[in-house]
């Protein structure tokens, strides 16, 4: 019989409760139980970074955390980055303007990682941006558009 637990957590500001199988990753839980399919699972062993979400404001791999471990925590997914009225987060807007995505698979992890990074480092150098996304693999863009977007968004966010 499957080992399950009841959990309560906050996802994108909303309180959620569910019964989860304990071996379910946070990423699978967000997609399958909550229908938040913005979070993408790529490699499922912590290398590609696509599944990155924020847990209590810190960027983590949702494939390397169990859903049961998110009990009582505050989770933000890519769906939670934009404003409630649908206007884009400055990073999302900058990705759009700077051609920061092609196929879009890596994008949710890029956005959540960079959101956490810019929170701590609002005025990064290009090198720092490249290091920040060194754990996020993009096979389309060659990263240039992503780096440009991150620097552009940082500027917008600094100027408020």
């Amino acid at each position, binding site marked *: 019989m499957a*080992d399950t637990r009841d959990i309560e957590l906050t996802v994108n500001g909303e309180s959620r409760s569910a019964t989860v199988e304990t*071996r379910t990753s946070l990423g699978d839980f967000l997609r399958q139980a909550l229908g938040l399919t913005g979070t993408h699972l790529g490699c499922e062993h*912590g290398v590609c970074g696509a599944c990155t979400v924020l847990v209590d404001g810190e960027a983590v*791999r949702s494939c*390397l955390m169990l859903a049961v*471990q998110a009990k009582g925590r505050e989770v933000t997914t890519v769906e939670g980055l934009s404003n409630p009225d649908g206007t884009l987060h400055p990073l999302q807007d900058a990705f759009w303007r700077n051609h920061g995505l092609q196929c879009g698979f890596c994008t949710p992890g890029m956005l959540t990682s960079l959101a956490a990074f810019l929170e701590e480092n609002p005025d990064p150098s290009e090198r720092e941006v490249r290091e920040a996304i060194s*754990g996020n693999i993009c096979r389309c863009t060659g990263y240039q558009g992503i780096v440009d977007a991150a620097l552009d968004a940082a500027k917008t966010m600094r100027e408020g």
Partner: protein
Amino acid sequence: MKPAPFTYHDPTSAAEAVALLGAHEDAKLLAGGQSLMPMLNMRFVVADHVIDLNGVEGLAGINNTGDALEIGAMTRQRDLMRDPAVAAKAPIMPEALEWVGHFQTRNRGTIGGSLCHLDPAAELPCLMAAYDAVLTVEGPDGAREVPFTEWPLAYMIPNLGPDELLTKVTVPTWAGGHGYGFSEFARRHGDFAIVAVAALLEIDGGNISRAAISVGGADVKPIRLEEAESALAGQAAGPDAFKAAGEVARQIDAMSDTYVTSAYRQRLAATLVERALDKAAQRAGGSA
């Protein structure tokens, strides 16, 4: 790519975790999960029981005793990088931690998890070797202390019984103003090191009074260059002495793998030892 079914346990005390280890065969301890979770996902590891340490009281935190840093095994790598006492007393630690995975994995990854996983190319075991850290392990009969030299038993096998738990790492700190340097070569930033070197120096009036050099990634466990350390003592801190230390590093036993030959690792070790010592000398508060 999903873990095989297991029974999940979330103890709240170290004693409870040890009791669970004793009560269940085929149990794995889950710390930050940045190595165990991939292995569970890929089913390289199939465990009947997973004991989650994230809710155990008192396993995380940093205590500065004045001559040592006592670091709880569940202290996150990111917290070590942000801690003012660590930055002041052991500044090589934040420098080396920059090389550990990526910031997203350091948010979860712990010092104890890395030391128990004991990947030969991991940065934290290399650092703990340089410091002669002491590891506190708790088991059913109480606690015991293990000096780092006795910690790695074999490739990825720590000196830890099946019903024991690593609880604390004691890092003896060096004199204020000591020099430090961490140098690494990896194929990409955040990858495991092909070779990494940690160097610590105390310099008094331009002469080296104390040195520690540890090489990671070259062999199944970190190598301390004791011969080079004693040769450095008393010498003027400068390129000649550092080059000689590099030549000692060139003689180490080094692994070959699919990508990198043993000879290449030896060459890298020689170069990185020189660089790490040079960096350490420049940072030493003496008249180097």
